[in-house]
């Protein structure tokens, strides 16, 4: 008899423990913030673009005599969302343009991940205010954008990877590290892999769960419509005269193709909330929804909406996998050894700058003043290395000077925009000359070879002798 009472209680206790453990694993396990950083970049670019486009007719959208007047919007918000707010409603017409510019700057900083804890909150405030100021121009894109901005802001984790904040922190560490380089000539920059974080995991989980709700609701709501059951709904989207970018009316001759696309689209939305949680099924689901959104963007011209949905789906992509796209499949595998002049302050600073953007120790800096360069590569000579920086790739290829710099910048996502200039005709010729001139005139640490300098060490030699610094 007693067990009739205790067994159900134990079952409930076991269930409670299982729920607690599962919840802790789901929410409070630190996650790699790389994918969150990529979501931030994509969200920031789209937010910037959205506000920029509003700026093409700023008075029309936000002005006192715009499509929706401030009085009309205030009355509308009082009716539907009494607590809704928008700073745009307080901005007089004359100040709209300056405020718009400030907002664009904030969104640019947010995109780059600069001061990200602050700029992510401001970015969300800008987007939420914009949505509320112009409710007559809002469509699905704004809903998703606002949601992403909310989660990026509230968790404060969006700048933990793929950000200038992190770059700055790494650069400071690397600057100290390069100054402390050991007698072996090599020094190890801190890993490019960001620290897993609970805040990042919460942000990713919030985006993931919200995305599941969006697809699920979109799918379930469609079940009310006969066109989604009889397979004709796809036609309704591609033949909508105001949306189509291309003439797809030829599809009318292939009704079963229309049926197939309709059923497939509905199936994706209905199955997404279930299959996306399965590790094996996730890449397939992500590939399918990406294709679906590309299709929506191309056929309906809803490019921004499609892009923001793809951006949100990045929350399901593995951070290490994203990083491996630029750092290589094998973590920590060195792509090249960089021979630089360790006695040159400018060279040391350059190595700190470049290695701070290294996604995962692709570059191994080697101070040529402390090693036998022929051991790095038999074709190298100390004289040649002193003339210009040399890069020995993992495939034993040697690049020097300007070409080495460009190769290294090409490995570092942060510097990709700079590395692209090499494709402009003539830039390489000028670049080599400029590099050689800078390399030839570079300052070096004063060599201490007499007693006087031994008493008064040069100011550039900031590192204690005990660390084995090579000022001789």
């Amino acid at each position: 008899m007693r067990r009739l009472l205790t067994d159900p209680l134990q079952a409930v206790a076991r269930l409670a423990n299982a729920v607690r453990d599962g919840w802790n694993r789901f929410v409070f396990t630190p996650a790699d913030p790389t994918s969150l950083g990529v979501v931030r970049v994509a969200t920031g670019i789209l937010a910037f673009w959205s506000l920029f486009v509003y700026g093409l007719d700023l008075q029309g959208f936000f002005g006192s005599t715009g499509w929706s007047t401030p009085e009309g919007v205030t009355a509308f918000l009082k009716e539907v969302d009494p607590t809704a707010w928008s700073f745009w409603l307080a901005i007089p017409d004359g100040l709209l343009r300056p405020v718009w510019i400030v907002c664009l700057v904030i969104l640019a900083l947010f995109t780059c991940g600069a001061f990200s804890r602050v700029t992510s909150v401001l970015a969300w405030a800008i987007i939420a205010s914009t949505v509320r100021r112009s409710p007559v121009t809002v469509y699905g894109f704004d809903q998703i954008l606002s949601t992403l901005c909310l989660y990026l802001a509230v968790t404060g984790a969006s700048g933990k990877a793929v950000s200038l904040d992190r770059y700055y922190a790494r650069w400071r560490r690397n600057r100290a590290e390069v100054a402390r380089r050991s007698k072996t000539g090599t020094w190890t920059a801190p890993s490019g892999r960001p620290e897993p974080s609970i805040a990042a995991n919460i942000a990713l989980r919030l985006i993931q769960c919200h995305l599941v709700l969006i697809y699920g609701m979109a799918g379930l709501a469609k079940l009310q419509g006969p066109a989604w059951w009889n397979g004709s709904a796809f036609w309704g989207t591609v033949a909508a005269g105001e949306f189509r970018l291309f003439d797809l009316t030829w599809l009318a001759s292939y009704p079963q193709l229309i049926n197939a696309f309709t059923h497939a689209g509905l199936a994706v939305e209905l199955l997404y909330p279930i299959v996306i949680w399965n590790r094996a099924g996730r890449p397939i689901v992500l590939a399918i929804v990406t294709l679906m959104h590309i299709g929506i963007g191309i056929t309906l011209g809803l490019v921004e909406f499609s892009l923001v949905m793809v951006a949100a789906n990045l929350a399901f992509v593995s951070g290490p996998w994203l990083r491996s796209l630029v750092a290589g499949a094998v973590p920590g595998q060195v792509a090249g050894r960089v021979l630089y002049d360790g006695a040159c302050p400018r060279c040391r600073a350059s190595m700190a700058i470049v290695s701070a953007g290294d996604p995962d120790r692709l570059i191994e800096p080697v101070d040529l003043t402390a090693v036998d360069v022929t051991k790095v590569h038999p074709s190298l000579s100390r004289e040649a290395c002193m003339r210009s920086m040399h890069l020995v790739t993992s495939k034993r290829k040697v690049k020097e000077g300007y070409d080495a710099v460009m190769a290294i910048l090409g490995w570092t996502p942060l510097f990709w925009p700079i590395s692209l200039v090499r494709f402009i005709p003539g830039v390489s010729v000028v670049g080599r000359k400029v590099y050689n001139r800078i390399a030839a005139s570079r300052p070096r640490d004063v060599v201490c070879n007499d007693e006087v300098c031994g008493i008064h060490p040069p100011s550039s030699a900031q590192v204690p002798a005990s660390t084995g610094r090579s000022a001789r």
Partner: protein
Amino acid sequence: MDQLDTRKAESAGESTGWPPWLRVVATIAIVSHAALIWIAAWGGSPASRLEMSWRDGFRWYYGLIDQGYTYRYYAPEPPPTPVLRAVIKYKDGKTEEVRIPNRDIQPRMLYQRQLALANHLLNDVEAARAGTGDASRSRWAQSYAKHLGKTHPGAVSVALSVEMHLIPDPNEIRRQIDATGKAPDLDDPNQFYSVPERIGEFPCDVS
């Protein structure tokens, strides 16, 4: 690779884990937020009285954080697209017609914004008509007319109407393709547009 990463993350979590009180606070916040977002998504029409009353009870939250959307895209079916037509009359008797969305506007996102303008106007006009029997009482119709009057100097009145760009019947399209060898022009006003519904004529402030 994935497993390795997870193990590293978990081991890191042991040293950087949040204290229990913070986990409890975070759990309450996350669960509450998720429940309210869920309620909002279910509370959009069609919904039960219970769902709608719950949704209405938390409007303050949705207003604060710009949430509460229902995400019913293309549901129950892809709808025809509203097109706003404004006829602007000038002092000298001339008239000018403005079409929203304007097909020539660039970039494409501005076109999407104009599609939204027409869509929101249609909803508001229908609500005004249902509520007062007079479409011209629509808040946004009055606001749009005022805007068009201001942006077209010399305008004395703006007459608004809305029509639907219809979705063609695929069987009819197929028949026309079979008969003529080419698809019909989906912008043909005689075939693929509804009869324009007049919203009203709004005088402009010419002072």
